[in-house]
């Protein structure tokens, strides 16, 4: 592990503790970085390339249950769980989007059901951190433009996308007019986003 990465690591937060709660033991050498903290996985993860089918990942939990994942060539993801002592696994087939959803839930990336936030850290760029957050536009600012609200001047954040009626507008212009119920994707630092939430979203 590079020294810089170790030096930049933050104190463990709740989510990280969750991952470290298991007792470390001999494993196949998989290392996961979560918020720059090196977390050694506690389970032995096996991966296997099956010709014509796709890639298989399988691991056994501490309690003896087995979880297997298959990324099939046709693009679907199948997840099997086999309870200890059982003979037939149960399976669920997911689209890539559904699988990513599941992954988000498992890694704790989703803060609230309708408001999601992702923090990205670039350790190569002096530990640069940016957060992308979604908000739902309230009726109070409906009909105003990005320019009217002076979002960048007031908060330093930038609206990078708006989702309206299942249609996405990427990089909306300053003249963009908000409507109530728009989902906006805002990028900035955590403090700037807090400012955005308090200054703009309740205006």
């Amino acid at each position: 592990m590079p020294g810089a990465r170790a030096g930049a690591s933050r104190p463990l937060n709740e989510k990280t503790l969750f991952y470290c709660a298991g007792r470390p033991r001999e494993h196949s050498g998989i290392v996961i970085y979560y918020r720059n903290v090196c977390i050694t996985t506690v389970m032995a993860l096996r991966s296997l390339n099956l010709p014509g089918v796709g890639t298989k990942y399988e691991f056994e939990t501490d309690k003896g249950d087995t979880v297997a994942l298959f990324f099939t060539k046709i693009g679907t993801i199948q997840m099997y769980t086999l309870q200890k002592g059982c003979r037939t696994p149960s399976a669920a087939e997911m689209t890539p989007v559904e699988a990513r959803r599941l992954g988000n839930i498992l890694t704790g990336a989703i803060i609230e059901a309708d408001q999601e936030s992702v923090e990205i850290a670039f350790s190569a760029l002096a530990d640069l951190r940016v957060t992308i957050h979604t908000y739902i536009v309230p009726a109070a600012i409906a009909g105003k433009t990005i320019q009217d609200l002076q979002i960048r001047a007031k908060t330093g954040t930038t609206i990078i996308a708006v989702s309206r009626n299942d249609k996405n507008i990427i990089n909306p212009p300053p003249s963009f007019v908000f409507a109530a119920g728009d989902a906006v994707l805002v990028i900035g630092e955590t403090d700037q986003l807090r400012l955005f939430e308090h200054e703009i979203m309740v205006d």
Partner: protein
Amino acid sequence: MEGILAAGGIILALTVCLVLALISKYLTIPAIPFYIIAGVILGKAGLGVVVSDPVSSFFAELGLIFLLFFVGLGIRVDKIVENRNAVLTSGIIDLNVNMLIGFVAAYLLGFPLIDALVVAAAFYISSTAMAVTSLVENRKLMMREAETVIWLMVFEDLIMIVILALLSAGNENLLLFAVKIMIGLGVLYALAHYGKEFLVSILDREDELPVLFTFVAVLATAGSALYFGIPDTLMVIALGAAIATTDPDAFEQHARPFKDVFMVIFFVFFGISITFSGSVNIGVMAVICILAIVSKLVSGVLTAIALYGSAKSGIEIWVNTIGRGEFSIALAALYGSPPVAVTIAVMVIVTSLVGSFAAKYSSDLLRIGLSGRSRHHGPPARRGHAGR
């Protein structure tokens, strides 16, 4: 634009296939038997509304070539060597049992020697596409038998190459033939090895070049193979295997549209070319079909006993390998006399449908079989543990 009208038969056949494919996907059963049945109905044996012409034969050949190219892309020699134990045990049992039963049956039923060999080869080769689809759709990937089935298919693909080489050698000077093939293989591997960076740079482009390149590479290989008098089928598989060492996923992605369309044309026109007049009697076909189903049961059970010491696992291997499909049809189209072609077509239709239903209901099948036997032999729980 009159060319389009001249190809009206192809358009009609493909439209029928499209409708049938929708139905087969809805019922989650393999589409290949439907394409063949569509061809039989439209063609010589049925209504006679579509006849094959040079255009359709060209497209059908493209379908076969792209199918074989895909087989080649799936052959990763390094992976096979890594897993040689898993591949060899099951593969050799499967090969011996099914080839033997298929050949003896076909010969005794009155096929001439060479025809019996073609029938035996088609009888032996299960459909890789059907096996994989069956494992994925019936959510069986986690079972240990699934891995066995997958490696079995890889082994069968390898044997397919040997069979193609043997059957196409025919009456030629064997030594010269072998030397030509070796030179062909050498050229392909050298191109893939030394041209790797160039290949990858072409595949990475966003424009039309990757698709065009893939199409030309496959056709040029087939064309030059024929020009030099070596079987194009073999060289196209070799091309796939050679460029599988660069970026097989990209090639698969670019070749898929060609394969998907032309292969359907291949299957439907194979059906169209079938004639029932003066061919094999129904009894012979029925025997071949029943044996085709039973012999995979025998090889499946033997494999399961050899690998896991459990005959019951053999049922899972069996249900996923019953279906014969694309390779059997390819062999029939390339080397089959009319009676052989009919026999193989019927075998493919019957085994693929039986296989698809057996795979769907295999767990019920096992449960009924187990409770039926346990009444005589003891409590099911103990049998269950013994089976693990």
